């Protein structure tokens, strides 16, 4: 590793504050490799990604627009102590959020008790009145969750976002591990790492466990519903369906017949019991939600509400990952479980609370202000990089409609050594663990580490110069 590797003022996952490697065995395996050899392995990895067609995005059609997702061969390491903490923190959080969803769509006790304001919940764009009074099989709403975690300069791990709808990225975790074993087998020596390979098996088990009770003789038939070949996560949909050995279906492959969902096969119609959908609520049923959706199955929600098919994740889960509701998650955990949250939230100021609003307006230059009901980064003010005019505009909006805004301090993402040309440099990372919830919980050890490949950048998104790394949980 390069001696001039400097990570001032940021928590580095590999080097301690005194520049000592936190994982001496791994540091040794890497040290004995020449820089040229490492770079060569990096190139081999990229060639393999091309040949294997591990791609993430397609715009328009035919060819040329699928991109490989850059992969960095230097792994991100997580100690078993840190992992145990994250593991129990995530289970606690998901358990509480499922109880919250059960409550929101039935009695609404938490709102009656004044812990979460009812108007906040009902005004969320992702609240689905079509789900009121319905409880999914086993009370499981979020079969698959991909929570985004970050580590700040203080060394503390925070929850940045709960992704409770269709989180993606798990296929890269599996592909990355496979790729690592192929191109850099020697760095595994002397290190004991939790395996990730059983995820597809566990996912299938989770889907089967939450099937409706009256399935036909051969056990539940599960399918994966994809928007199709032009969706940016299509590779993942194929990959997971293939790994689980289930059918990958599109909306037009499914029909409603005799009160059940059926798929059209070469031998006629066949009943489907569990749909792992990778399509948003809005699009799954044009009769219940957006009428212009051609991706979904007309009549699906009616079959769902009769209990004749399981949809994973359940429709309506989005209300629990609304940005304003997010601020209440520590209180939600306390309310249902009488426990303190193990994983802290990023401190969040709800502008609907007068003291908080006052603070936000006085500190706009330091804060990130986000609209609660928007997604995809729309309408965000990044205080430290903003102009006075932008701040004025946001201040006016916040004052006009305080309930629509939250604010958070800018957090510094931790860094991990990453190959940059001929050198190894610190680059910022986040972490997305994947949590399965059926009869019990299973968390894929580690998760997806996304890395911002540009120097100083904290944007890890694949569309904006982000890449990924293999993630090692030491055992």
């Amino acid at each position: 590793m390069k001696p001039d590797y400097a990570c001032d003022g940021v928590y580095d996952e590999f080097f301690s504050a005194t520049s000592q490697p936190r994982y001496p065995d791994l540091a040794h395996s890497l040290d004995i490799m020449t820089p040229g050899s490492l770079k060569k392995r990096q190139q081999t990895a990229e060639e393999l990604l091309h040949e294997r067609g591990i791609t993430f995005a397609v715009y328009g059609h035919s060819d040329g627009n699928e991109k490989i997702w850059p992969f960095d061969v230097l792994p991100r390491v997580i100690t078993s102590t840190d992992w145990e903490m994250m593991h129990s923190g995530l289970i606690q959080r998901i358990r509480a959020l499922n109880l919250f969803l059960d409550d929101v769509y039935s009695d609404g006790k938490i709102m009656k008790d004044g812990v979460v304001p009812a108007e906040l919940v009902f005004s969320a764009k992702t609240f689905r009145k079509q789900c009121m009074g319905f409880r999914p099989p086993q009370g499981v709403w979020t079969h698959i969750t991909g929570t985004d975690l970050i580590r700040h300069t203080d060394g503390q791990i925070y929850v940045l976002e709960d992704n409770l709808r269709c989180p993606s990225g798990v296929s890269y975790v599996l592909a990355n591990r496979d790729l690592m074993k192929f191109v850099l087998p020697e760095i595994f020596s002397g290190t004991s790492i939790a395996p990730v390979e059983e995820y597809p098996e566990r996912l299938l088990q989770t889907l089967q466990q939450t099937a409706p009770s009256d399935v036909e003789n051969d056990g539940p038939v599960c399918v994966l519903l994809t928007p199709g070949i032009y969706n940016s996560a299509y590779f993942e949909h194929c990959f997971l369906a293939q790994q689980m050995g289930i059918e990958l279906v599109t909306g037009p492959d499914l029909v409603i017949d005799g009160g059940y969902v059926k798929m059209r096969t070469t031998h006629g119609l066949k009943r489907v019991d569990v749909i792992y959908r990778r399509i948003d609520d809005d699009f799954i049923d044009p009769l219940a939600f957006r009428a212009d959706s051609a991706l979904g199955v007309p009549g699906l929600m009616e079959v769902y509400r009769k209990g004749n098919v399981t949809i994973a994740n359940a429709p309506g889960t989005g209300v629990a990952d609304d940005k304003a509701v997010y601020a209440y998650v520590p209180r939600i955990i306390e309310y249902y479980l009488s426990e303190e949250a193990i994983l802290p939230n990023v401190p969040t100021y709800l502008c609907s609370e007068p003291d908080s609003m006052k603070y936000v307006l006085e500190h706009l230059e330091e804060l990130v202000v986000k609209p609660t009901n928007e997604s995809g980064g729309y309408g965000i003010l990044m205080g430290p990089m903003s102009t006075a005019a932008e701040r004025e505009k946001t201040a006016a909006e916040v004052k006009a409609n305080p309930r629509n805004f939250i604010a958070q301090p800018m957090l510094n993402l931790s860094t991990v050594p990453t190959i940059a040309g001929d050198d190894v440099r610190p680059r910022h990372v986040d972490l997305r663990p994947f949590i399965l919830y059926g009869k019990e919980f299973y968390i894929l050890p580690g998760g997806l580490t996304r890395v911002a490949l540009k120097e100083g950048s904290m944007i890890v998104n694949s569309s904006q110069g982000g890449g990924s790394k293999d993630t090692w949980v030491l055992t």
Partner: protein
Amino acid sequence: MLSRVADCLFWMTRYLERAENIARFIHVTQSISLGDAHNPDGQWSSLIFANGDTKQYEELYRTYTRRNVLEFLIFNRQNPNSIMSSLLKARENARTIREVISVAMWESINRFYLRVREAEQHADEILKNPSQFLDRVKRSSHQMIGAMEATMSHGEAWNFAQMGRLLERADMTSRILDVKYFILLPKASQVGSTYDIVQWSALLESSSALLMYRKVYGRIEPKNVAEFLLLDRHFPRSVRYCIATTRASLHSIIQDSQHVMAHQPASEQNDPEYLLAQVDQQLSDLSIEDVIRQGLHQFVDDIQTKVSDIGQAIYHAYFELSPIQEQIQSQITESGASTQTQKQS
């Protein structure tokens, strides 16, 4: 399996086979035209005629030069049957059903596609001397066939893929034979001359058939060449072999499904099983003398029509989605009326 998936499998292999056969077409024309200094571009126009692409070609080019024809057949994306277009479509189908085919198959198709795209970058060079590139196309196709044979379960999905490939091959072998007619018929006086033998050898070679032919017949006789390519029982590119093997694949699909099709054909003329049995029978009963009496060109034409009918019948029986779709739509509007799922058209 899903109708949509079966459809994709069928076309995936069909397009791959098409790419390989276009390479073969070009190869035979190249061999025949080299050494024919009197009419250097003549062979190339007949290649377009035999392929039935005249209209498409003439919209894009004014003259039949070697370079134009090669570009049209290899790289032109506006020609839906070019090697490039075939590869694009084969890969798109493969990508759509990536979860159904084996990893080895996907990787071999993806690599095949990447190679052709890479070649596109050096199109000028390749158009000057396409031999090496064409060889690579054939090899890549064989590699994919090998991967499919060795790594995919020989069940329903495999059988649909087999049918796509073999029907395409039956069609293309018959067309390659037809090329001979366009090229050599005007020179009837040369039958039996050395020149003629060179050309017939090239024809056989283009189907990788020369050595296999020699084992059966020894000397080259036009009649025997036609017999070999049309009626041989064992040669994997002969029309008869392709039809018989397609029939076997369909038979296996039907057996496995206890004779249930997504849409039961209304009549024998729409029944793929019946149509295949008919052609198979015809090819095993006929002698090459019968064929020649009938006229080779007419016979080949007839075979091509039948292959197309079989493809249509398979589509209606297994792949088509629209009939159920209509019923579902009407079910929605009539709210709750019971559906009949097997449409009898």
